[in-house]
């Protein structure tokens, strides 16, 4: 009974949404019959449109506040009847929160989604199909973001921005240890760490990467030769199998354990994931020589340093060096997509809002002010003047991504990757034992049994 009501309501909303999608022009201007039947507040072109509140969920730390208020103002000038209400969400527990919100009758109209989560949200039927809308820069979108936003060959998430992780280092510590240039291979890295360990007081970390920080650690697995796409899992004939037991992954896992943890070069907690604020504090205090953090954090670390310690610590950045000098370690290309809730009554406004946010103007500012990689290849040149962003763009040349399937979010949220790395790097399990546990969980989760 209840389910039938829900089904009927969902069907009505979807039909309404499809009808509303018929016209891509701005809603108040389009007085076509489709928009009035869709329930958008443009009952007739002659009367003023009814007031609407557009609920927008953005992730905390994604876009600078100044940028958000700029595009909100522009949107509200265009549509005086619309009040944009932005709700900043935290990443912790966001999947549960979003799925629950999408199931309600009053979901957020526009939502920012981590690129690894789009598939799982789309699979619930909670997102509107955005394939029929024409988007700014659509033909030059970053391929990985476009793939992340696509599920069953339909577009559910418009590429918003990307970001990757770079090595940020303390030049003062490097100089003191007599190191003149950043390492370009892992062998360089290890010999630099030996020098740093000799020059610094005990308890100083050379390369501070918490053991369960899989965004950074998996780069050492994807960097093994022939492993560029297969480190986490591979799909053949629709069946997924985990890759951590492969010899390439085993070599990478043991390399990290032997060379970073057993040597005391890392010194970060083996069974914790990264907390950006803690890690940034550690490099600001000079307790670590190198950290691996998103490129857009570089600016905030520098400004913190200028406040607390203006002339002591000099920062620099480099791409995490590869096993050979030919290429840096592949980096995790994270990022976000923007979507519209299927049950949103304001489909047109929501789409229009996303079109505004992802246009050339605001995407450029996301790069120059926000410090992230913009969604279009045509805008990548903006970063040449900015050293850390330049590093990030270089590092992004070889990147890796998580398996693109709805169940991937389940793997992440069940801490499968964290548990694997924590068990190995804390010395509680061998790399092969932990990998076989993880691989069997991956197979059962991704294959949905």
């Amino acid at each position, binding site marked *: 009974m209840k389910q039938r009501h829900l089904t009927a309501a969902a069907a009505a909303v979807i039909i309404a949404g499809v009808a509303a999608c018929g016209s891509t022009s701005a809603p108040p201007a389009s007085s076509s019959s489709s928009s009035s039947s869709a329930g958008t507040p443009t009952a007739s072109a002659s009367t003023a449109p009814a007031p609407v509140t557009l609920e927008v969920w953005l992730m905390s730390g994604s876009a600078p506040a100044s940028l958000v208020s700029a595009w909100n103002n522009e949107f509200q000038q265009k549509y005086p009847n619309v009040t944009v209400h932005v709700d900043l969400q935290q990443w912790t527990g966001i999947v549960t929160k979003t799925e629950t919100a999408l199931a309600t009758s009053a979901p957020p109209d526009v939502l920012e989604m981590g690129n690894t989560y789009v598939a799982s949200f789309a*699979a*619930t039927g909670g997102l509107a199909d955005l394939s029929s809308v024409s988007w700014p820069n659509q033909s030059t979108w970053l391929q990985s973001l476009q793939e992340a936003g696509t599920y069953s060959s339909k577009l559910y998430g418009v590429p918003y921005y990307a970001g990757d992780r770079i090595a940020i280092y303390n030049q003062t510590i490097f100089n003191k240890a007599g190191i003149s240039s950043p390492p370009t291979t892992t062998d360089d890295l290890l010999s630099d760490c030996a020098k740093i360990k000799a020059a610094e007081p005990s*308890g100083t970390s050379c390369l501070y990467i918490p053991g369960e920080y899989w965004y950074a650690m998996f780069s050492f697995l994807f960097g093994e030769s022939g492993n560029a796409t297969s480190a986490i899992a591979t799909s053949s004939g629709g069946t997924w199998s985990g890759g951590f037991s492969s010899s390439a992954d085993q070599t990478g896992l043991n390399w990290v354990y032997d060379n970073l943890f057993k040597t005391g070069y890392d010194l970060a907690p*083996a069974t914790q994931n990264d907390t950006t604020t803690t890690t940034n504090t550690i490099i600001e205090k000079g307790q670590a020589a190198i950290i691996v953090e998103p490129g857009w954090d570089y600016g905030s670390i520098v400004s913190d340093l200028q406040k607390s310690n203006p002339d002591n610590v000099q920062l620099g950045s480099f791409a995490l060096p590869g096993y050979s000098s030919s290429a840096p370690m592949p980096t995790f290309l994270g990022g976000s997509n923007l979507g519209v809730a299927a049950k949103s009554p304001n489909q047109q406004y929501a789409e229009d809002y996303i079109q505004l946010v992802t246009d050339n103007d605001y995407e450029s500012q996301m790069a120059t002010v926000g410090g992230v990689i913009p969604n279009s290849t045509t805008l990548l040149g903006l970063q040449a003047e900015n050293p850390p962003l330049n590093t990030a763009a270089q590092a992004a040349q070889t990147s890796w991504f998580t398996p693109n399937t709805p169940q991937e979010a389940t793997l992440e*949220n069940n801490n499968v990757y964290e548990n694997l790395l924590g068990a190995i790097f804390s010395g509680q399990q061998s790399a092969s034992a932990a990998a076989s546990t993880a691989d069997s969980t991956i197979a059962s989760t991704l294959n949905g049994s």
Partner: protein
Amino acid sequence: MNAVGDIPATPRRRHLGIRSTRPGAELPSPAGPGSVAPATSRAARRLVGRWVPYALSSPALLVLAAIVGFPLVFCLVVSFQKFGGYQLVTGGPTLWVGFSNYQRLFTTDFVPVLIRTLLFTAGTVGMTLIIGMGLAMLMRRAHTWARVLLTVVLVIVWAVPQVTSSQIFIWIFDPAYGVVNWVLSSLHLGSYASLSQHQWYNYPVSVLALGGAIVVWGAVPFVAITLFAGLLQIPEELYEAARVDGAGFMSQLRTITLPLLLPILLLLGVLSIIWDFNVYNQIYVLQQVGGISSETTTFGIWGYNEAFVSNNYAAGGAVTMIGVLLLLLVTGAAVRMMVRGART
């Protein structure tokens, strides 16, 4: 104890008495128009009397049915279906899958999670009752000002939200900046220089022990204050008589305090078992900090993970039903003991 035992017996005897005297009571009633009215009013009163208890308890029963009964039945129904994010959002087709949700749970994580949860619950309930009892006895013997101070402190502890206390414990045990590692290194108990300090989150046992400590810390005030109230009901003369007979502290505890507090202890024990078996907040907050979460998952976390992390609401419902059954076994036995204890 005997006074308590008499209570259920008294109405039963009175009830029987009424029934036996009823025919006799109606015999002397004289024939006439006046006699009908008292008879019907008595019948009406009997009818009303039969329904009054139901009428009075129905608001509470309705509320319980809505907030406990409905979710429980919904959980049970869903646990035999395929019910995930798709079904939640779209209300999509109902698929009955029999016991397959339960089958998967029993063949995967059930045994390790159950053993871990039982050990955890035994440890926390035991520690809570022992520390609570100790504090209650201390309060009975302490000076008034100390008793007031202790009560205030206990109430403050009680008032601290679980997430807040968990976060504070996490800071205390922080590997790099925590006060525990600082104290240990100041006492030269091992190598605790800056970043290379002891990693409390590396070992599942120390994570669960820390979680248990947070749980016990938060649970002791309720137990201590309740037991203290119970202790005040024990007449001082009993202890005086025992002392005159030469009973020491331990034998007073064994022969007077514990037997007289047994009903309260049983009740507190049952409540603590239910709360600690289902503990969620403290462990969840700890798991967010680190550790190998698959080795620290207890029953409450397991159910949440199945339902809301994996978006498999059917499996979450199945975990809940298993938990309800297990707790019914334990609490059923304890409630039977309590009832029997009240009768004798």
